[in-house]
């Protein structure tokens, strides 16, 4: 016979009260778990989309001249007499404090070329980096090696070329290794070729016209990264691409705040339920507590019995609350995440532990006043009630 045995015996006997305490905590904990994991899942969904978006930082030469647009983005700079960046300087990006968040750096050399009497823009790129920077590219054929070229859909149509065709640029014959599906961007009109070969063809060895950077972000600080890159590339103009996702991020931000508000409210209601139920339980047990006093229990022993009861129920509510919240999120996620793909919930040990601790803290906090009241009951008064 220990204080714990008394606590357990009491819970068994007052299952209704124990159930009420459990329900109060369960509602609170499962709501918090559901909302938090919903927010997390939606954030992951958005980050996933961010990654799908490709580049989010552009590096272009500093210029005071006309603006040039690319992909509907204002780049700054001028198409002719373009100033350039030294290719080797790009290596400095690996040294910025947030270098870990850099998924890919894609240098690009641009220059006008004449093919079959037509003026086109030729782009020398690092195809490996472009797999990250242009995840939406669909190549019919293959990425080009040295001596090869990849044509944008529009360029292929204009030149009447398909995979396997040949074209001559500045006296060098290139084989079309593949054609891009329509992207709806300026990529459609370009001839892409390996960087080194293009620099040679355009007479721009060791120089690049611009570079794109993909930052892998779950809330990684794009503006700070822009500053960091600017610092290591003094000759370049570094800018963030305004994301379409930004709007969704804001909505999510509102939802997150709303979630915290609701969570707080539900927890408050839950803890009030615990408080009222525990208070009722203490009142029902005045005689019993009087007996404890007569047996020589200290006030702190009485407090311990009541808090132990609360902790047992709260621990159970923590586990069940996590499971319930987890299940609710699984059911709700298709309604919140666009299309329901990408977003998913997985068992989160930190959230599970957090739910358990939260339940204990709320359960114990809400029971502390009833426990204190119980410890202060006058045993003489209690025993006289008989």
């Amino acid at each position: 016979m220990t204080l714990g045995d008394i606590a357990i015996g009491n819970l068994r006997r007052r299952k209704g009260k124990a159930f009420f305490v459990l329900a109060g905590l369960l509602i609170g904990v499962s709501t918090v778990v559901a909302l938090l994991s919903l927010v997390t899942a939606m954030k992951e969904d958005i980050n996933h989309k961010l990654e799908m978006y490709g580049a989010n930082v552009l590096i272009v030469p500093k210029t005071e001249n006309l603006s040039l647009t690319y992909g509907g983005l204002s780049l700054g700079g001028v198409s002719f007499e373009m100033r350039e960046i030294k290719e080797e300087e790009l290596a400095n990006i690996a040294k910025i404090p947030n270098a870990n968040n850099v998924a890919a750096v894609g240098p690009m050399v641009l220059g006008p070329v004449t093919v079959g009497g037509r003026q086109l823009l030729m782009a020398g790129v690092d195809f490996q980096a472009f797999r990250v920077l242009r995840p939406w590219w669909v190549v019919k054929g293959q990425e080009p090696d040295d001596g090869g070229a990849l044509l944008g859909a529009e360029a292929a149509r204009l030149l009447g070329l398909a995979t396997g065709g040949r074209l001559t640029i500045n006296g060098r014959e290139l084989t079309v290794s593949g054609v891009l599906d329509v992207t709806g961007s300026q990529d459609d009109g370009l001839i892409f070729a390996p960087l080194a070969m293009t620099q040679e063809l355009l007479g721009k060895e060791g120089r690049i016209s611009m570079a794109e950077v993909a930052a892998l972000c779950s809330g990684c600080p794009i503006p700070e990264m822009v500053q960091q890159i600017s610092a290591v590339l003094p000759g370049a103009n570094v800018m963030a691409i305004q994301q379409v996702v930004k709007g969704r991020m804001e909505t999510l931000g509102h939802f997150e705040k709303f979630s915290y508000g609701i969570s707080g409210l539900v927890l408050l209601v839950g803890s009030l339920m615990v408080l009222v139920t525990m208070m009722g339980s203490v009142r029902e047990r005045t005689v019993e507590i009087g007996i404890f006093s007569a047996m020589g229990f200290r006030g702190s022993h009485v407090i311990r019995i009541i808090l132990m009861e609360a902790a047992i129920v709260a621990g159970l509510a923590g586990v069940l609350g996590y499971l319930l919240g987890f299940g609710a999120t699984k059911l709700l996620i298709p309604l919140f995440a666009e299309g329901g793909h990408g977003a998913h919930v997985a068992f989160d040990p930190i959230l599970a532990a957090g739910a358990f601790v939260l339940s204990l803290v709320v359960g114990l906090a809400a029971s502390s006043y009833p426990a204190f009241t119980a410890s202060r009951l006058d045993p003489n008064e209690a025993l006289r009630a008989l």
Partner: protein
Amino acid sequence: MKRIQAEGIEKRYGTGDTAVTALKGVSFTIEPGEFVSVMGESGSGKSTLLSIVGTLNRPTTGRLMVDDVDVYALGQDARADFRRESIGFVFQNFNLLPYLTLAENVMLPLATVGEKKAQKRAKALAALERVGLARKAGRLPGQISGGEQERVAIARAIVGRPPIILADEPTGNLDSKTGKEIMAIINTLNAEGMTIIMVTHNPEYAAYANRVLRVADGILAH
């Protein structure tokens, strides 16, 4: 050493117009091993006296010494510890916890002490044996008779081997045959050296005691 020494004890309940003075200056001493019964009319202050001796009810004025300790000068925790070690209560209404078995009820005073469960259980069974209920140790209080419940209450009071047993009308709810059985047990405990103070309305049971304290309207009448 006096076991119990009450000096000018007064107890007033409530304040103002509704105040009731249950004890109006009571002094007495009880020697170790004495068996004292307390008698008096209903409302005369017997239970109040017993609860004050039991360290559960602080007197308005006066001093209570138990084994030369001024118990109401102790802090709350120290007083609880003192109660656990020195005093066993037997109530008229048994006051057993209905959700605990007889053995667990008897172990209750040991719940706050750091002993092995097996040791506590052995003590409880020994105490139940004393009152002839060891074989019903696993039952719940609702499954035994009133007389048996009172015997469990006695077992619980003696499990910690306190020097003092306080009993408030332990036979009040029992038929006379059962009452006599209970009295026999109490008498044996006294014979073994326990100091016993018992409130009773029954002169026949009061006769078991060495001495009778008569309370009338808050005053001791010798």
